């Protein structure tokens, strides 16, 4: 729909932490509730999405469409659990961590084969993970910077040594960028390999017609017994919302990615169609640039935050399919504090804050919105109307959606809409990205608001170095309170991932990190 969620990770902090309590989970791949004899095999799933993939190279992909498709072609040592709160072993079956927290030994799963039938070994794992940080310009190089070296004492053991204690390593191993491909590209050049790449995933690439369709077929050597159920998956690029919806209704496609929220209730009453809102980590913000007058003034930011009616936004923009935000952190993350005091609509408090500010009679400002982005245009007009009684005259400036994020990054805005999501299950990515100031070396400078709180920075850094989730929770609670009070951005709402799909589709699930495991999906004929 908008910018890639993964972009957040590129610029995000390298300090992705993981609670070790969650990390030691020893679950087998998720078992489905459906009785095995009820499952029907075969068929082609047509998955209509708003845009095409951009690349098949996992180390270089930053857009969600590429990432979510690639996660069905390449697999990682560990994966996020369906609830997004823990990790599950995947291509590795277990790990041990040395007492000095520097050496991680992974035991690889036996019987895993690539899509050409050759077995996966530790050499492939070493090659794949070394690639991620081989070039500093690789978008996810920062993820693996702590790795000193990777040793392969035998074909089923991988030993990763870190330069310093690095708790998020396991979480990193679940990131798509660390997906496993054959050692040395199976003897080909990189370009040759990615023309028809192979991994260990349930589906393999048949062909990619750029701008139109990515066709995947079943991997006959897949390691999970009996899976995948489908013969083929076609990811089609269908930009128009209405067309995707009609395709699912007519049976041309089986899954419609991101139907507009306005159509959800209609879809839920359409025969043969299921519309589901999957919990996501999407947190929508109205942010202020503190380098531009008068947003350095705390009272101005608080006044605007008080003046925004979030409940009305959820109704008007999400058609009720979302929740009002109370914290910078999404409820999809374990550290979310349901009682965080994020500012809520209170017009009287807004007027009081405005009266105390440096501009008690109001001012003129500009709010940038993405051209053609109906959500931002609606939100913008709501904000414009709601700030008018405070004497704040808001001009909406429509900007090219492709340059909107660049403008925000370069500080060329006064007010803007923005959002944050997480690619990993740890709260640190969102906090680093959206709350940590420039003094910490964090390039995103509190989501480009240029807001600085040495106190929040210090708490966030402490939380990165503590291994007890309970202690980290206390720090994250303090951070959530402080960010709410200082209002560098107004937290608007939490938005789910909306999907509409044919009732013939079974086993389709979207995780809070946005990915889906299509090996569990089957079609009733």
């Amino acid at each position, binding site marked *: 729909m908008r910018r890639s969620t993964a972009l957040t990770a590129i610029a995000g902090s390298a300090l992705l932490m993981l609670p070790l309590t969650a990390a030691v989970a020893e679950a087998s791949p998720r078992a489905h509730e459906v009785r095995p004899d009820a499952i029907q095999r075969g068929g082609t799933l047509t998955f209509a999405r708003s845009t095409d993939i951009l690349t098949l190279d996992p180390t270089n992909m930053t857009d969600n469409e590429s990432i979510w498709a690639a996660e069905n072609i390449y697999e990682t040592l560990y994966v996020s659990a369906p609830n997004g709160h823990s990790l599950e072993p995947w291509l590795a079956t277990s790990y041990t961590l040395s007492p000095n927290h520097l050496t991680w030994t992974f035991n690889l799963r036996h019987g895993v084969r690539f899509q050409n039938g050759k077995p996966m070994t530790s050499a492939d794992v070493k090659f794949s993970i070394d690639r991620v940080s081989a070039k500093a310009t690789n978008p996810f190089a920062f993820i693996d910077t702590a790795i000193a070296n990777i040793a392969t004492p035998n074909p089923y053991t991988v030993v990763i040594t870190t330069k310093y204690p690095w708790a998020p390593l396991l979480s990193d191993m679940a990131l798509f960028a660390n997906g496993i491909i054959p050692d040395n590209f199976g003897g080909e050049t990189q370009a040759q390999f990615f023309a028809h790449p192979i991994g260990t995933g349930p589906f393999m690439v048949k062909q990619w017609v750029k701008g139109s369709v990515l066709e995947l077929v079943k991997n006959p050597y897949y390691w999970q017994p009996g899976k995948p159920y489908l013969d083929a998956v076609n990811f089609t690029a269908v930009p128009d*919302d*209405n067309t995707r*919806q*009609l395709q699912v209704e007519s049976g041309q496609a089986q899954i419609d990615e991101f139907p*507009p929220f*306005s*159509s959800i209730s*209609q879809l839920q009453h359409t025969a043969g169609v299921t519309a589901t809102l999957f919990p996501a980590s999407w947190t929508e913000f109205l942010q202020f640039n503190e380098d531009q007058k008068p947003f350095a003034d705390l009272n101005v930011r608080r006044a605007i935050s008080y003046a925004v*009616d979030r409940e*009305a*936004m959820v*109704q*008007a923009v999400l058609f009720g399919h979302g929740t009002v935000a109370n914290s910078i952190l999404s409820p999809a993350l374990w550290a979310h504090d349901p009682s965080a005091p994020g500012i809520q609509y209170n017009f009287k408090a807004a007027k009081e804050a405005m009266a105390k500010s440096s501009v008690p009679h109001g001012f003129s400002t500009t709010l940038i919105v993405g*051209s*053609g982005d*109906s959500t931002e*245009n*609606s939100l*913008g*007009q*709501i904000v*414009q*109307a709601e700030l008018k009684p405070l004497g704040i005259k808001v*001009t*909406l*400036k*429509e900007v090219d959606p492709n340059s909107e994020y660049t403008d925000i990054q370069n500080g060329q805005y006064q007010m803007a809409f923005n959002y944050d999501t997480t690619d990993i299950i740890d709260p640190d990515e969102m906090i680093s990205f959206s709350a940590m100031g420039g003094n910490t070396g964090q390039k995103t400078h509190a989501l480009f608001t240029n807001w600085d709180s040495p106190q929040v920075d210090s708490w966030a850094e402490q939380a990165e170095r503590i291994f007890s989730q309970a202690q980290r929770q206390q720090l994250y609670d303090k951070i959530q309170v402080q960010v709410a009070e200082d209002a560098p951005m107004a937290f608007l709402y939490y938005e789910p991932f909306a999907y509409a799909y044919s009732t013939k589709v079974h086993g389709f699930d979207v995780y809070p990190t946005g990915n889906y495991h299509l090996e569990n999906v089957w079609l009733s004929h």
Partner: protein
Amino acid sequence: MTTVSAEYVVEKAQQRRKLPPALIAGGAVLGVIVGLAIFAPLVTSYNPTTQDLTNILAGPSAAHWLGTDQLGRDVWSRLVYGARTDLFVAFIAVLSPFVIGTLAGVFAGYFGSALDATVMRLADVVVAFPFYVLVMLLVFLLGPGTGSIIIAITVVSWVSYARIVRGATLVAKNQEYVLATKAEGFSTSRIVLRHIVPNVVSQAIVFATSDIVLDILAIVTLGYLGLGIPPPTPDWGEMMASGQQFLTTHWELSTIPGIAVVLTGLGLSLLGDGLAELLSVER
């Protein structure tokens, strides 16, 4: 002389009685739309920008004749105020190139030589680009807004007026009545403005009635593409664009302003045909 004058008056009066039907039909359609636009505050009690987020996407009712949009604003009110915005901008956007183009054309045609060459080469440069490409580029560079739209359309549209008027001037300047004024020793400005312009301008006027259709479409298109009049000012193009996401649930949100554009275009086209007939201009 008296008899000639009387005959002329009678002839004119007969012509007036037989107005072309296209002119009447076009005038009626446009009259209603312009009337609604002018008397917008009288035909709706709602402010077109007032939001009611508790009553969004409501269907037609006694309170809201055409329902409400995604921000709970009255659609009928936005439609008539949108007519105001779009017709006003279109009127200015056609008047400005009309004046500039006519003057450029008449002077280029009358004086010829270097001035003519300069104006016509400038015109060639503008015509070298497709209309929408140039207008969109200019609006994008100047920043969306009413002023930018008028400037952009003027920069592109004056050419047509200049070419039409220049051609007519080339013919007119060798007509006897012009030669006569020259022989009388009238000043150049008087000859051009009092004697040539009134005789060549009718072609430009007729062209203007079809040009304004193009301008309205351009304004609506720019609004649809997000390069139009900034929100919350109502505009048909913006109404169509924001209604598009509700095409399967509330088709009327995009369709109603679309019908308004079609009716306005139809009215203006008929008016243009009728006017051409009345002024006996070959189109």
